[in-house]
């Protein structure tokens, strides 16, 4: 019978059988769940633990944040991203000066520090700007393209004269009427809302145009045309333009407004009325008396 005790001293006899624990270990490693745990879970845990342990120190976290910010700044401050000049297209000098005032940028500045959308809204909020587009052109140029509002009339407000565009937006103040004598003068409450009608009246004035001083919106309802001699043409609420055309025609035919007439009242279309000056009334009566 072989010795029951294991003969360790020989050492040369190799046992091909796995040890009991080796066998169990291999079986454990062949268990799918455990294998996944060891091959994925443990490395994840170790790496995660190391990272968590390292970042637990305030100094380390600060170091990461500093390094991040430094790198970010370095990239943002590169020459390629710097904006050096602002170019404004489509604006006259006063508007360009206004834009430079509302966009107080100190050049050179990094592209990343510019909030183009906010700047665009700032520029578009200017009264004289209809539309604005901003972009950074290659070469470090901040390109501001604006579409300026075109003044179509002078509007006399209680606090002074203003230019007004076709949509009724007040663009800018002017000091004297003579500054923009080429534009028609419009005034009165509600005149901005009915601007188109007022301008239409101006358009049909024809030969009367040089004599027109302005149009006045009366009671937010109808128009009065004021001529240079202080004469007034009262237009109806409905269809004021044909009524004014009638006055113009009448003037051409009979020189109505060359006479001493104070008011031409067209408010009732079927019955135009003329009010004469006091002197003219007196003269008219006198003439009538002499004829009788």
């Amino acid at each position, binding site marked *: 019978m072989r010795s029951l005790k294991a003969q360790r001293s020989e050492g040369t006899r190799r*046992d*091909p*059988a*796995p040890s*009991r624990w080796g*066998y*169990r270990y*291999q*079986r454990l490693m*062949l*268990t*799918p769940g455990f294998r996944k745990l060891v091959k994925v879970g443990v490395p994840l845990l170790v790496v995660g633990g190391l990272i968590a342990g390292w970042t637990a120190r305030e100094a380390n976290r600060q170091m990461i944040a500093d390094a991040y910010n430094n790198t970010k700044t370095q990239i943002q401050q590169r020459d390629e991203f710097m904006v050096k000049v602002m170019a404004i297209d489509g604006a006259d000098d006063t508007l360009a000066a206004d834009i430079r005032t509302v966009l107080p940028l100190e050049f050179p500045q990094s592209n990343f520090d510019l909030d183009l959308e906010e700047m665009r809204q700032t520029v578009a909020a200017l009264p004289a700007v209809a539309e604005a587009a901003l972009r950074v052109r290659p070469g470090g140029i901040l390109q501001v393209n604006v579409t300026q509002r075109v003044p179509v009339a002078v509007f006399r407000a209680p606090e002074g004269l203003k230019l007004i565009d076709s949509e009724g937006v007040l663009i800018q103040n002017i000091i004297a009427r003579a500054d923009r004598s080429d534009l028609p003068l419009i005034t009165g409450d509600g005149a901005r809302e009915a601007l188109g009608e007022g301008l239409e009246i101006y358009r049909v004035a024809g030969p009367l145009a040089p004599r027109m001083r302005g149009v006045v919106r009366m009671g937010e309802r109808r128009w009065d045309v004021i001529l240079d001699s202080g004469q007034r043409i009262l237009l109806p609420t409905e269809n004021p333009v044909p009524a004014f055309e009638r006055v113009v025609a009448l003037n051409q035919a009979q020189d109505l407004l060359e006479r001493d007439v104070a008011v031409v009242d067209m408010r009732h279309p079927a019955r135009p009325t003329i009010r004469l000056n006091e002197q003219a009334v007196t003269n008219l009566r006198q003439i009538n008396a002499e004829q009788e």
Partner: protein
Amino acid sequence: MRDLYQSQRAMRAMRQAAMQRGVIAILDIGSSKIACLVLRFDGPEQFSAKDGIGDGVGSMAGQSSFRVIGAATTRSRGVRFGEVEAMAETERAVRTAVQAAQKMANVRVDHVIACLSGGRPRSYGLDGQVEVMGQTVTEGDIGRVLAECEVPDIGEGRQVLHAQPINFALDHRSGLEDPRGQIGSTLTTDMHLMTVEDSIIENLLYCIKRCDLELAGVASSAYAAGISSLVEDEQELGAACIDMGGGSTGISIFMRKHMIYSDSVRMGGDHVTSDISMGLQVAPAMAERIKTFYGGVLATGMDDREMIEVGSNTGDWERDRRTVSRAELIGIMRPRVEEILEEVRVRLDAAGFEHLPSQQIVLTGGGSQIPGLDGLASKILGQQVRLGRPLRVQGLPQAATGSAFSAAVGLSLFAANPQDEWWDFDIPAEKYPARSLKRAVRWFRENW
């Protein structure tokens, strides 16, 4: 019988659980080698779908529903006559085989089907008869008729390994495969009962348990070898499978696709080796080597001239330059092989093998590889002798397709298509103890 039912049914349940998981190991614990196969059950649909055939029937009539994904063999230690002799040694050898097979399969196996060749198997023929309760035979009737079989005195310390119904007869009609649903009044059955020594199974079970494995089934290795190496006709018409192992030679007789008799001769290849070792005065390892390289059982004139160097590694290389002729070697081997075959003949005669319609004898197992064995066997066993190799199964390595692996391959076929055994049918209610809780439960289940 009760605990047998319990343990066998537990094994059957475990086997089904293993099938569900898809991986099961086959362990052939023999006297000369321990083989472990790892099987993966994918179902036949998967294979046919892969081929694009898609007819639902796999190749080889569904026997290819599994695939061998791991195979390993190791030299057996601590096993003699197919019985565990040194537990720790056997455990180590099993661990070696299982570990290597697992490594090859890259999957962990928990369930093992083992076969055993020793344990002095004994066969009994049983018969039972009952009156059919209803008009047609039901599963309950089969259970009753099986329970009705009179169990012989199988002796102290023995346990039933197989109990297979091999024949049913309904009234005067015999030879029914499956009497269920047929109309008749008297149901008779023949059953083949095979017993082995209790302690052998206990040892085997304990050894496998020590390897952290669970036993999902036990089969006789002679039976398994017969499944794999007999072709279908032979199984149908009657044939004997002689599984010539290292420590024992198993005999199983098949007829009508059922094993009807099994026995074993406690002699095998190891005895031939020890004869050579003693006769030529060499170490057993050297004797084994000489046997496998130069062995034979039929001497010719040329064998006198073929000299074999038998100088073993005694450390005396200069002096020990002995040679023997091959004829001498054959002269040593042949009497022992003849003795084994004579013993087999005796067992076959005792079983009444000559009354079978066909008397095919198939030699398989590692011992059947001796050159000239079929010639010698036909002289002793009869004319119809052939050498058998196991059925080819999918994924089996080339090294494991030899006849030495017929038991392992048969065991995998057995795992894939197990035969109905006694314990697969329900025990009829009247056989339960009177105050059984189970009976109450059963009554509830049937009536509510």
